């Protein structure tokens, strides 16, 4: 390693061209797909978005399987309820597909349910793909380099990374309570009752931890005013800058077109 150079593992290029994109480019892409999914109506628009903005990049990033698994886990309960509610309770549905007692499944309800579902998949897929291909710390460094206050960037990052820590804490407390005879299995009611003794230690422990973390950050100069020194930052390029502006312009254009009555 040359004098004054950071080790090669810092800022090591990602495994695929998509991983190697600047974090802000991936963030803008995900945001654009999510916004476009909200703006675009009908079925064709969200399908095209899913294909071009989520599936194709996921294939390039070799993350399609992980993406599908995560998207299913995240959206399946919501997707099912959206489909069922629209299928059976769509207001003004006339073409009946199936009748179960007093409720009827309608074709209009099914079409609307599928449209919402596709939008939901495009939004969750775009966000999930971003998180699968972008370490949060890289985004934080990139934002900091662009002038976003370090405190804001780190608080956002630490909040995201606190979730796994809380899950680990909850698992440890559950194991400890089980070892002392707490029953957390069986019927839903018994499981719910078993959760109550876990809530206190998890929440109070997390609050105490936050206080210690705040002191530790203070003791490491985190609250010092002025810029931090960055060891490295993710690469950026002219074409990526152009792509980001183009995506944002595209979203604004779509919104304007939609407000103007397009596609009719």
């Amino acid at each position: 390693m040359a004098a004054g150079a950071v080790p090669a593992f810092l800022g090591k290029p990602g495994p695929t061209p998509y991983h190697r994109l600047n974090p802000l480019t991936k963030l803008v892409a995900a945001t654009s797909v999510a916004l476009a999914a909200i703006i675009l109506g009908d079925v064709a628009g969200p399908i095209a978005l899913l294909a071009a903005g989520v599936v194709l990049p996921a294939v390039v990033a070799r993350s399609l399987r992980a993406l599908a698994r995560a998207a299913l886990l995240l959206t399946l309960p919501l997707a099912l309820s959206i489909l069922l509610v629209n299928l059976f309770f769509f207001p003004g549905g006339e073409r009946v597909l199936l009748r179960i007692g007093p409720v009827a499944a309608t074709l209009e309800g099914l079409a609307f349910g599928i449209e919402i579902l596709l939008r939901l998949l495009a939004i969750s897929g775009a966000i999930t793909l971003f998180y699968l291909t972008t370490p949060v710390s890289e985004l934080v460094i990139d934002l900091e380099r662009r002038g976003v206050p370090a405190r804001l960037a780190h608080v956002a990052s630490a909040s995201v990374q606190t979730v796994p820590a809380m899950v680990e804490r909850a698992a440890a407390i559950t194991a400890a309570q089980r070892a002392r005879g707490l029953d957390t299995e069986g019927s839903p009611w018994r499981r719910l009752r078993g959760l109550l003794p876990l809530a206190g230690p998890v929440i109070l422990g997390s609050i105490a931890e936050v206080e210690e973390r705040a002191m530790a950050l203070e003791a490491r100069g985190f609250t010092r005013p002025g810029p931090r020194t960055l060891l490295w930052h993710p690469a950026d390029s002219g074409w990526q800058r152009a792509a980001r502006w183009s995506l944002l312009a595209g979203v604004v254009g779509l919104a304007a077109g939609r407000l103007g009555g397009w596609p009719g």
Partner: protein
Amino acid sequence: MLTLDAVWYRYPGADAPTLRGVNLELRDGEVLGLVGANEAGKTTLCLVAAGLAPRTLGGTLQGRVLIDGTDMAALAGHEVVERVGIAFANPATQLSGVNRTVYEEVAFGPANLGLPRLELIERTESALAALRIGPLADRDPARLSGGQQQLVAIAGLLALRPRHLVLDEPTSQLDPAGTRLVAEALARLAADGASILVVEHRTDLLAGIAARVVALDAGRVALEGPADAVLADARLPALGVAEPASVRLARLVAEAGHDPAPIRGLAPSATPVAARAGLESGSPA
């Protein structure tokens, strides 16, 4: 020098003060051991000495904490950080939680100070080398063992290069090899002129690194003096502090009617430490 001058500290909402009239001098180039039972006020004293109480924690402080003659109350938080560093007992909460590699984690503190990049790299690598954790540099700090995290946390503190260090049970999760590395690093820092306050239950470790030892009892200084004398004091077990193995052995040898002098030169103390030359008993306020 770091000085606590008649310091009383009460936590917010607490009925009674945790520290009661503590007088303490942490001299340049000195390792000062701090011992005491649970709830004696050791961690609180560390937080006060590092400027975190009452600045971050709130509460009420009476008396003065002086850093090299300057009242800590007159300094901004980041000015205190550059002079006094603190490491807590739980390394997991001491990690920033935002860095993906040990290298970046160790660099986090000095990076916050806005140092030139070359100096940041030099300090980081020097701290990693001091604790021989260079091979961990590319690892995720969150995925390390407790002992490794403790070394990373201490390395992060060393990289800040404060003139005064406050270490609250710095070896609580370390194996003997890790403990030895920390002890060696502290000895080097003290030799370079840093003043170091170490809270430690392992009195054997303190016997090896501390020049002086202070024993706290219910927020007051109960014993203070040269490490060998305080750690051999007969009152130490009554203060909830285990005597070092060498002292225990010397006592057993003496009780068996033999001469304990050859055992590391430590004889069990039959008289109160305060009665010995050069020692002072803490006077409760």
